[in-house]
C-alpha cells in the first residue's frame, strides 16, 4: 500500500474542507471497500480524512412520516432499526443480503452508496480497464463478462454497481443529502447520485470533489407490499447476479447497470394494469446482451415476477 497521511475529522464542515482543499485526499468511513482497493493499488489516496466518528449516525423521523438515516449509520444499525423493519422491510432485506455480518458492522450508509464495482477486470491491475486507467480499454467487453451490465453500458465500460442497499433505496425513491465544499447543502435522488459510464467511466457520481453525503432521506413508503429478491451463485455472502426491489408499484433492479436501475417502464406498465410478466418485459425490452450475461435478462424477468407476486400476497405489506 502506498503511504498516506491520516486525520480523524471532528466536525462535518472541517472534514469537507480538508478533503476539498487537499489534493489526493479522500473520505474514509468504514473502509471496507476503500482499504481493500488501496491494498490492491487501485485506489491511491495520499491523505485520508476519517469521517467515521462524525455525529452523522442517527436515524430520525423525517417530515411526513419519512426517515432520515445518517450517512455514518452502519449497515447493521439501519437493517436492525425497528422503524426501517416495519416501514421499509425491503431496505432491511436488501442490506442483510449483502456482505457478511462483520462487513455490515463496519460499512456505513454513505460508504455503501459509494462502493465501487466488483468487475473482475477493475480489480485485475494487469488488465486494461477504463474505470481504473482511463483510455486503456475495457477488458470486460468480449471478456468474461457474465456479471456485466444489461442496461446503460457503453463501449467504454460494462461494469455494474454492487450495492444491494442502493437498489432498495432507489425503489423507495430515497434522496441523498450532501454538504458541498462551499458549505452549501443539497439533495439529489439516489438515482441521480450515479453517472452511467458513457465515455468517462472513471467518473462515477455527480458529487463534486470534497462533497460529503451526510444523510439519506427515505420518503413515506408507497402503499403496497415490499420485498427484495436477489439471485447469486451461492446462498450467502456473495454479490448479486441480479436483484429486484419492489415497494408498492415502484421497482428497481440491482447488478444490471452501473447504478441501481429504477424500472420506470415496468412501473408505468404496472400502473396501466399490466401483469408482472408484462411489466418486466416492458423494462427488459431495452436490455442488452453482451455475450455472456444474456441470462440476466431472463433472470431479472423471473425475479421481477416473483417479487411482484410476493408483494401482492402480502409479505412485508
Amino acid at each position: 500500500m502506498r503511504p498516506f497521511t491520516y486525520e480523524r475529522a471532528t466536525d462535518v464542515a472541517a472534514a469537507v474542507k480538508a478533503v476539498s482543499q487537499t489534493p489526493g485526499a479522500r473520505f474514509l468511513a468504514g473502509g471496507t471497500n476503500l482499504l481493500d482497493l488501496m491494498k490492491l493499488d487501485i485506489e491511491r489516496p495520499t491523505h485520508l480524512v476519517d469521517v467515521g466518528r462524525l455525529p452523522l449516525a442517527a436515524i430520525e423521523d423525517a417530515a411526513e412520516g419519512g426517515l432520515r438515516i445518517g450517512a455514518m449509520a452502519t449497515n447493521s444499525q439501519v437493517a436492525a432499526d425497528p422503524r426501517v423493519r416495519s416501514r421499509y422491510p425491503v431496505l432491511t432485506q436488501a442490506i442483510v443480503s449483502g456482505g457478511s455480518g462483520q462487513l455490515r458492522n463496519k460499512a456505513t450508509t454513505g460508504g455503501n452508496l459509494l462502493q465501487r464495482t466488483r468487475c473482475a477486470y477493475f480489480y485485475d491491475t494487469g488488465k486494461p480497464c477504463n474505470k481504473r486507467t482511463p483510455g486503456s480499454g475495457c477488458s470486460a467487453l468480449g471478456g468474461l463478462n457474465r456479471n456485466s451490465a444489461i442496461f446503460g453500458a457503453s463501449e467504454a465500460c460494462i461494469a455494474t454497481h454492487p450495492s444491494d442497499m442502493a437498489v432498495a433505496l432507489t425503489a423507495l425513491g430515497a434522496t441523498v443529502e450532501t454538504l458541498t465544499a462551499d458549505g452549501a447543502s443539497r439533495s439529489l435522488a439516489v438515482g441521480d447520485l450515479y453517472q452511467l459510464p458513457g465515455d468517462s467511466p472513471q467518473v462515477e457520481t455527480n458529487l463534486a470533489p470534497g462533497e460529503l453525503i451526510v444523510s439519506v432521506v427515505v420518503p413515506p413508503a408507497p402503499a403496497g407490499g415490499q420485498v427484495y429478491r436477489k439471485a447469486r451463485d451461492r446462498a450467502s455472502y456473495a454479490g448479486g447476479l441480479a436483484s429486484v426491489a419492489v415497494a408498492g408499484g415502484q421497482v428497481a433492479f440491482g447488478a444490471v447497470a452501473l447504478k441501481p436501475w429504477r424500472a420506470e417502464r415496468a412501473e408505468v406498465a404496472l400502473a396501466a394494469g399490466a401483469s408482472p410478466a408484462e411489466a418486466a418485459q416492458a423494462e427488459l425490452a431495452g436490455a442488452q446482451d453482451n455475450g455472456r450475461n444474456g441470462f440476466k435478462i431472463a433472470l431479472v424477468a423471473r425475479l421481477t415476477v416473483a417479487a411482484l407476486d410476493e408483494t401482492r400476497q402480502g409479505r412485508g405489506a
Partner: protein
Amino acid sequence: MKTTITVNGQERSLDLDTRTSLLDALRETLGLKGTKKGCDQGQCGACTVLVNGVRINSCLSLAVMHHGDAVTTIEGIGGEDSLHPLQQAFLTQDAFQCGYCTPGQICSAVGMLTEAAANWPSQATQDLSAAIALTDSEIRERMSGNICRCSAYPQIIAAIRDVAGAVA
C-alpha cells in the same frame, strides 16, 4: 502515528505507520498471534475481532481508525484455565480440524450471539417483527462471513447451537 487502543482490557500505546491494519498491529506489533490472517481482504473471517463489542474484519480496518477503541481478540475471550463457553463447546463438538479459522469463528460467534440477543435480523429471518430464534439456518447465515476450509461447519453449528441454547 501515535495510537492508543485498549486491547483485551489493557491500554496499549502504539506508534504506527498509518498503513498498518488493525490485524497487523495485533499480530506483529503486539504479538497477539491468536488472530489469524487468511485472505487479508475481508472474505474469510479468520481475522475477526470484537471492537467495542462488535465483530469486524480486522484486516479491513486501519489501526489508527481505532484510536480510543476497546478491542477484544481470542486471547481476551478466554484462556486455558478460563475457557469461554464457546471455546469449550468447540472442543466438546470437535468443531475444528486444522484450527486456523477457529479464533475468528469464536470471536465471530461471540459477536453474533450479541447481535441475535439484540434482535438484529439476518437474511434468514422470515418475520422482521418477531423475536429472533437462532435456528440452524439463522446460525449458518449469520456465520457466513467465516470460512472453514476443513469444512467443519456441522460441528461449528452444533457448538454455537449448544451455547445459544444455554443462553436462551
